[in-house]
């Protein structure tokens, strides 16, 4: 996937931009970051089979991008991710309503979404919890992916291998000494390589958060929420 054009440009701004290429890449990033969280919450809320949930999410995202719903997000009214979750939920509700109408022999072409009115929380704590859990996983996975790309480009495959074997592995993990033996490195080199990978991972994670946030305040809130720290 090509890098997002400007790492300090949020997807929300990019989605409403004039350049169709930038819009397309922003849409792709939103889809990659939010597909799993949307799947998780819609499947749970609407009691869907996994394949049906997948179809629904695909349809929602395609419609949202096509009709430029997401570009109408207003940061003053809440978080972008809450906006997206509630929008998808409304979309699913409308879809179900349309299906029922079809079954009764009515007109199916009534699916719509007043996205301007969906900003803010719908008050469903469990939906938010599920959505947030998957969102955190997506953010971390995107940051790891960026670290992988950077490591390849800068010829630091060993750094990445150490990071993967130590920080991403499940217990029991190897010791620094074992990692050093595996890669013909001294323990101090293992420490140094891991320090580089962790530092870069952190930078990428912050960058992903900044890109996905709907506003500077949302970015700061997300950093506090995910990292427990004040955004640098």
């Amino acid at each position, binding site marked *: 996937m090509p890098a997002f054009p400007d790492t300090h440009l949020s997807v929300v701004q990019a989605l409403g931009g004039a350049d169709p290429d930038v819009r397309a890449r922003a849409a792709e990033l939103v889809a990659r970051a939010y597909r799993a969280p949307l799947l998780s919450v819609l499947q749970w809320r609407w009691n869907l089979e996994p394949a049906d949930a997948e179809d629904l999410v695909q349809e929602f995202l395609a419609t949202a991008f096509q009709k430029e719903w997401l570009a109408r997000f207003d940061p003053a009214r809440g978080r972008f991710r809450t906006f997206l979750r509630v929008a998808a939920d409304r979309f699913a509700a409308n879809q179900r309503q349309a299906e029922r109408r079809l079954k009764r022999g009515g007109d199916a072409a009534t699916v719509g979404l007043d996205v301007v009115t969906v900003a803010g929380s719908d008050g469903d704590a469990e939906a938010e919890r599920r959505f947030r859990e998957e969102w955190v996983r997506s953010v*971390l996975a995107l940051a790891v992916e960026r670290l992988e790309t950077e490591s390849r480009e800068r010829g630091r495959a060993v750094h990445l291998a150490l990071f993967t074997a130590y920080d991403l592995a499940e217990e029991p993990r190897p010791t620094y000494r074992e990692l050093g033996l595996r890669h013909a490195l001294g323990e101090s080199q293992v420490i140094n390589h891991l*320090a580089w990978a962790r530092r870069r991972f952190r930078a990428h994670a912050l960058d992903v958060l900044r890109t996905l946030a709907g506003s500077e305040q949302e970015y700061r809130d997300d950093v506090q929420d995910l990292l427990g720290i004040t955004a640098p």
Partner: protein
Amino acid sequence: MSSLGAGGIARLREQLARPELPERYALESEIGRGGMGVVWRATDRLLERDVAVKVLAEHLADDGLAERLAREARILARLEHPGVVAVHDAGVSSDGRTWYAMRLVRGRRLDEAAGTQPTLGDTLRLMTRVAETVAYAHEQGIIHRDLKPANVMVGPFGEVLVLDWGVAGAIGGGGGASGAKQAADTQTPATAPVTAHGTVLGTPGYMAPEQAAGLPADVRSDVYGLGAILRDLLAARGEAPPRALAAIRDRALAPAAGERYPDVLAFVDDLRRFQDGLPVAAHRETVLERIGRWISRYRTPIGLVLAYLLVRLLILRLGGV
């Protein structure tokens, strides 16, 4: 996208929550957490050695605690003494957290090590080393104000380190110590330490009454803290201390500052006198106690003389048969 397991996610989140220090330091694991910050075991990559890094806890970034942590680093840097941990470096992380790097101390906290000294003499030698460190700080114009067993580390060879100088302050104008003027440049005044919310800093049970009341603290407030440490060490031994030693403890713990030892050196002096079998200032002994102490102090020569006399007596008796 990468498939991340639960362990990987937890570890990545933990990595992200870590303070971002200069590249020189690679944080390894958390080794302690106090009222003001978190202490990490870290590697100094430049000098290739293990260090400890104390970092302000993120949720405490306000409330003037950043300045308190920075001040603690400056105090430690000034107190060059074997009983005070050496500071190597200090700064503010890119995410705004104040930190300082210091020697990695290995050992046990005194509250965990209390009662493990084989003899009363060992306990008192340990207590004396703690008090000598505090006396040195006073000489430098600094009072600790939060002395307690949890703030003392005992090394594998019995060496002691007095930790957590975050509540320390300068001795007031009457301190007269050579370092007092310097201390005033970097320390809080000698008024009782309080948070921005007006909470008195210190530890109940170890804090001198005047400090708990929000009144100015002086060296006698630290005498009280040392008395409280002595109290805990003696209690941990599980045996009633000799009356003279109990009197030393009680004088250090006197509720009125004027009834305590005037300074830590006087407290140390009494501890040493007790260990040497001499009369102590805190206790007026009876004639019987004086005889008992005299016998105890000279028990070896007295034993030798008695043994000699006994042998002589036996020889006389046998010679007479």
